[in-house]
């Protein structure tokens, strides 16, 4: 008989995951009223927006009333750079993080000591949901620094009682040496970086049979990618969700059921809204995830528009947790591209490639504009499995890939077969879409 799945065991830190729903709603409302009052008192932008909509904290008598309050957008953080949305004086702020602003200024987020404690608590609960516990050796390959991934996972794993290796990102060969020699049982990194690690480990003949679980996040990834990781490496791949504006990693996590991500909704209140109208949608409907921090003092986020598309899953989970789940984020609006009027998501491209090859090859989508017309090129790395010594076999493969893409996406895409490892493997986020269009 196989050993029992540790992710099924109850961990004391996870107690808040199982509180009765009515009790949870009461707690959420009490916390929500407090945090909205705090933001209203201390954040001028929020107060002005409330006045414009003629709402005040006193109007918040039920959780549903939250829908009357204004949204907070990513651009609000940028427009009030660096400290405009802070609700605590610097004397009470013990940590600052910042996003890797690819365009212009980064977005800055702040934490009081109590905020850091909340963050650590949700990360402990996240790791516990993945079956990690005291005795696990956790290699934390998220980048340490301004990015929230590294330190968030670090303090969570440490508070859990696990042994933390703060290796940070990069230096793949050293990662593999440590993974093998330190008998690592769990790893935290982006899923694309883990694939890169696994590939290199195979080349080096490294043994990481002790590695049991991967806590993967910071980028959207598909079920196909999960299957590839789990089949190729035997590592159970858990999806973790978070964003620095809310707290960092630890907003949501998969349990052993791997069927949606539980949101730690005693700290982060989720809504799903129609991205076009902003109207709150019922549980089960697909829309944009909007999050409100219920217990973050330094920088309360009221109704933050995440741009992540998901749906709330109201049904109880096999694991018994009462906190609701969100569907895995298949797409971020910034990952989506519009080509000849058609919305395309990289996950759809993955599905199309998988249908032909059986496994997911490394790929990259290149968008160009030729004579005013958008062109999609999908570069696909040739693997030993599909390679043939016959031209016509490779041309047939190319043709089949194009047909599958056409069928799945509804647009013509040109497939280019490229040599192995010619598509750049990022140490952090995978760049799946390269947009070279001059718009």
């Amino acid at each position, binding site marked *: 008989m196989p050993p029992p799945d540790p992710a099924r065991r109850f961990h004391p830190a996870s107690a808040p995951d199982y509180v009765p729903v009515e009790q949870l709603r009461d707690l959420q409302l009490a916390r929500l009223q407090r945090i909205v009052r705090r933001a209203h008192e201390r954040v001028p932008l929020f107060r002005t927006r409330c006045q414009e909509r003629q709402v005040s904290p006193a109007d918040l008598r039920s959780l549903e009333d939250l829908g009357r309050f204004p949204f907070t957008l990513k651009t609000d953080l940028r427009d009030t750079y660096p400290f405009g949305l802070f609700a605590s004086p610097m004397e009470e702020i013990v940590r600052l993080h910042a996003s890797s602003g690819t365009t212009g200024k980064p977005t800055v987020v702040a934490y009081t000591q109590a905020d850091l404690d909340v963050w650590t608590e949700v990360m402990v609960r996240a790791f516990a949901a993945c079956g990690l516990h005291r005795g696990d050796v956790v290699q934390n390959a998220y980048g340490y620094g301004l990015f929230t991934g590294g330190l968030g996972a670090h303090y969570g794993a440490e508070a859990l009682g696990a042994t933390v290796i703060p290796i940070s990102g990069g230096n793949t060969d050293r990662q593999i040496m440590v993974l093998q020699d330190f008998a690592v049982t769990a790893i935290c990194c982006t899923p694309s970086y883990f694939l890169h690690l696994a590939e290199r480990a195979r*080349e080096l003949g490294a043994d990481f049979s002790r590695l049991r679980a991967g806590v993967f996040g910071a980028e959207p990834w598909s079920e196909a990618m999960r299957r590839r990781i789990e089949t190729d490496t035997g590592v159970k791949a858990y999806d973790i969700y978070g964003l620095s504006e809310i707290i960092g990693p630890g907003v949501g996590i998969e349990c052993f059921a791997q069927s949606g991500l539980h949101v730690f909704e005693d700290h982060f209140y989720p809504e799903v809204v129609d991205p076009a109208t902003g109207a709150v949608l019922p549980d089960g409907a697909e829309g944009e995830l909007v999050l409100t921090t219920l217990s973050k003092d330094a920088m309360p986020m009221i109704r933050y528009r995440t741009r992540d598309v998901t749906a709330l899953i109201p049904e109880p989970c096999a694991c018994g947790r009462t906190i609701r789940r969100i569907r895995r984020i298949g797409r971020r609006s910034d990952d989506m591209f519009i080509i000849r009027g058609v919305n395309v998501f990289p996950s759809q491209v993955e599905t199309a490639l998988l249908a032909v090859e059986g496994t997911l090859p490394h790929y990259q989508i290149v968008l160009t504009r030729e004579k005013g017309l958008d062109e999609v090129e999908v570069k696909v790395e040739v*693997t*030993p499995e599909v*390679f043939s*010594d016959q*031209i016509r076999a490779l041309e047939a493969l190319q043709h089949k890939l194009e047909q599958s893409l056409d069928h799945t996406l509804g647009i013509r895409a040109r497939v*280019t*077969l490229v*040599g192995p*490892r010619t598509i750049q493997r990022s140490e952090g986020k995978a760049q799946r879409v390269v947009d070279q269009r001059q718009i």
Partner: protein
Amino acid sequence: MKLTQLSLFLENRPGALRLPCQVLGQAGVDILSLSLADTQQFGILRLIVKDTERARKVLEEAGCVVKATDVLAVEVPDRAGGLADMLGAFEGSGLSIEYIYPLVAGHRGKTAVLLLRVEDPEKAAAMLAGRKVRVLSREEALEAVGA
């Protein structure tokens, strides 16, 4: 009866061919024969070497996608019409040739050795032998090319 050929995927860009050749050179692997198939987008390099396993290993370590396939080494009279005569053996056999490239000419004075890629090498070898076409063993083929 069969010779192992290594095929490599090449991107259609400057320098793509040189890399595997350099890798083999550094490993001391001598290329006995080669053929290069090209399309607008990519190419396939097919190689015959003596130490196939070693060549494959160094090429894969260098990041090449390599496939091993069997080809037949067939002796053809080195004279006008020699090839046409050999191809005549295929007539009516239902077997077809994917591609051909030479291993060596001037072997034993008046013959050439050609490499044939066919769908079913066993069947083709038996058929050719039955029609008086000499198919060389691996050893004979290597000897013919002086390896």
